[in-house]
């Protein structure tokens, strides 16, 4: 028998008995970042495919909420900082080794792009919108002409943003549950699926809605595949990763993960979307809401359970 205990009474706040330095702010931000990445990706993709009018909700309507989503997400990030007045230090350096530095700079690129995208499509929502100053009208005309390059930059940076939300976790080898590169594509897929769900909510045409229901089904299938692969990887790895997987496979986080993320957040909405495609009348808010809920829960559970996985003691 082996017993390993700290006898000097270490009880550092938020570190002991197990790490909990990141509260709700980080998973909420990761969800919002992923969702914004998903919406922007579809907007850019269908613009570049020349299907702006066919998929109007994706290109011209849903992206209007992205600036708000990002601002709320950035505010959550600020709340997470414990030395808030120094936040500008993020922007006095570029550290290629640090995923958080990457994230800060990608947000610096994506946030203004989302505002620009919203601005050049504002007339879709408010047809009588008037910029009032000539310089703004000229700027709008100029930006509309540059839509293709903007869409390219936006599409690529949204993928980086979506992947980064997962890499942020997977770069920490100190937390065995996070230390898998599958989290990058898994969080990107989860963000794309959440983005498709929001577009379904905004879609007025039945054709567009069924298209995004199809896309969503495909992405959720990929997510399920990635989740299975993640656990296979853990179980074939070192003892600390086997223990980390145990948190979701019989451990304290098992029920929330499989019920909220996998069943309610993936399997049920896929089932409802398939029924919708088979001409059953399903209110779109149910599958879309469940997908968003599952995507949020995925971030929360991975974040909280990951902080409990460890190497020592």
């Amino acid at each position: 028998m082996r017993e390993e205990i700290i006898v000097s009474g270490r009880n550092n706040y938020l570190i002991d008995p197990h790490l909990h330095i990141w509260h709700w702010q980080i998973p909420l931000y990761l969800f919002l970042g992923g969702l914004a990445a998903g919406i922007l990706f579809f907007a850019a993709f269908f613009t570049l495919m020349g299907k702006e009018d066919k998929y109007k909700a994706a290109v011209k309507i849903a992206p209007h909420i992205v600036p708000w989503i990002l601002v709320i997400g950035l505010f959550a990030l600020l709340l997470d900082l414990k030395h808030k007045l120094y936040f500008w230090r993020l922007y006095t350096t570029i550290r290629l080794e640090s995923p958080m530095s990457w994230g800060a700079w990608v947000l610096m690129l994506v946030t203004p792009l989302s505002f620009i995208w919203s601005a050049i499509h504002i007339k879709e929502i408010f047809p009588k919108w008037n910029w009032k100053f000539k310089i703004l009208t000229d700027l709008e005309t100029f930006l509309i002409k540059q839509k293709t390059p903007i869409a390219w930059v936006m599409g690529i940076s949204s993928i980086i943003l979506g992947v980064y939300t997962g890499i942020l976790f997977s770069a920490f080898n100190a937390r065995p549950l996070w230390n898998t590169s599958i989290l990058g594509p898994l969080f990107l897929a989860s963000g794309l699926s959440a983005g498709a769900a929001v577009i379904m909510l905004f879609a007025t045409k039945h054709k567009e809605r069924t298209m995004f229901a199809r896309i969503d089904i495909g992405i959720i299938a990929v997510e399920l595949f990635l989740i299975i692969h993640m656990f296979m990887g853990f179980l074939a790895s070192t003892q600390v990763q086997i223990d980390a997987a145990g948190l979701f496979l019989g451990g304290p986080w098992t029920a929330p993960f499989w019920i909220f993320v996998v069943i309610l957040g993936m399997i049920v909405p896929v089932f409802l979307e398939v029924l919708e495609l088979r001409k059953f009348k399903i209110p779109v808010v149910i599958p879309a809401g469940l997908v968003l809920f599952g995507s949020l829960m995925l971030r929360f559970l991975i974040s909280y359970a990951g902080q409990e996985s460890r190497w020592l003691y």
Partner: protein
Amino acid sequence: MRYAMAIDTRKCVGCSDCVVACQTENNVPIGYCRDWVVEVTDGTYPQLELENRSERCNHCANSPCVRCCPTGASHYADGGIVLVAHNKCIGCGACITSCPYDARYSHPDGYVDKCTFCIHRIKKGLEPACVAACPTKCMYFGDLDDPKSPVSEVLKVRKYKTLIPEAGTDPQLYFLI
């Protein structure tokens, strides 16, 4: 120059003097500690084996905390000592999460804090407070590049281990076994 520490697990009695010495020397906020003592019991009575380890930041040569810091606040000082520049730290917690030894904490003033190997004392030619206070003299500190330093001398003649080297951090705390 490469500062390191060796801790004799056979001499340590687990008195926690090192912990108190550190808290006093470094004005560590109440309720926090930069070093701690781990007691490992192996076996079943009456065949028991005990190991006491005084632990702290491992001042890793390949520090995940320095790597993940988005502002460069966590950095290597002279001799490989891992330090946090308070006026660059935004308190994001990335380094705390990245440390497999859980050696860091968020100081109530906002920045991240941890063991500094008492760099202010080293600069004056003194030993770190924990080493100086140890009643059994179980800790050895010095420069690994200097073959005459106490830590180099003791590592030449004793068997030692480091903590979770498989985490890839290249820790610089050596436990004599």
